[in-house]
């Protein structure tokens, strides 16, 4: 038999809280100070970048226009980077093969075994 269900705890807690009395006096303007501190915390806690990104992913990105724009931009970026790197690879390989051709013909540039 279970003895620690949440309802039993809640009931027990409620009972204790009802019976609980304290004679200690609160500091002056206690309530006002508590609210001031809460407001100060809210004001100083700027939303983190991750929260902003998560918000953008959850709310902005699923919009059809934004989805199309996002995928289109990434496609263009991927294609541009691919083309740029391919161009660099082609230039490098052509240069290497040209050098190999010369090395085969010129004994003063030949790579000796």
């Amino acid at each position: 038999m279970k003895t620690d269900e949440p309802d039993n705890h809640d009931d027990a807690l409620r009972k204790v809280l009802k019976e609980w009395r304290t004679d200690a006096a609160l500091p002056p303007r206690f309530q006002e100070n508590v609210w001031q501190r809460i407001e100060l915390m809210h004001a100083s806690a700027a939303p983190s970048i991750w929260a902003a990104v998560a918000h953008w992913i959850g709310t902005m990105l699923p919009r059809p226009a934004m989805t199309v724009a996002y995928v289109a931009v990434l496609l263009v970026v991927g294609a541009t980077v691919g083309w740029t790197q391919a161009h660099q690879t082609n230039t490098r390989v052509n240069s290497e093969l040209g050098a190999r051709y010369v090395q085969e013909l010129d004994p003063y540039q030949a790579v000796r075994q």
Partner: protein
Amino acid sequence: MFKSLTPTKLSGSDPMKRGLLILVFGLIAAAAAYGCIYLTCTASVRNMQQGDKPELAWLKAEFNLNDAEFKRVSELHVAYLPQCAEMCRQIDAQNLRLKQLLAATNRVTSEIEAAITESSRLRSECQRQMLEHFYEVSRTMPPEQGRRYLAWVQDKTFLSDYGMKQ
């Protein structure tokens, strides 16, 4: 009485899931675009590299040679290689001899002078043979490409600095 412990669906979790899917899809699309463009644009150089004689395949592509011209250039190239190998052998032997002579003394002896003269003769002979080969190859090419080939190959051999940098 037990309260239901089944987690309730958080409001906004579906758009977030959809947003994440779109995010991942976009990244995959970008990677696919990169791969397609890169592989397509580098296909010809990769084919050249995988060939039997990549440097000759490069020559064919660089100077727009047709199959007949390329065949003739390849034949000239193959015929020239033994001459080149023989020159390499003579140059290596002469360099070794000169090195030994230089190590044996601290003055310019008549033997060293003769070895330097022989080195110069070998270089002249090597350059003459190369030049003959280059002219022969250039004549095999279409005139414009032949001129371009000569300018390029002379720049890389006769007019190169052979490691002399300012």
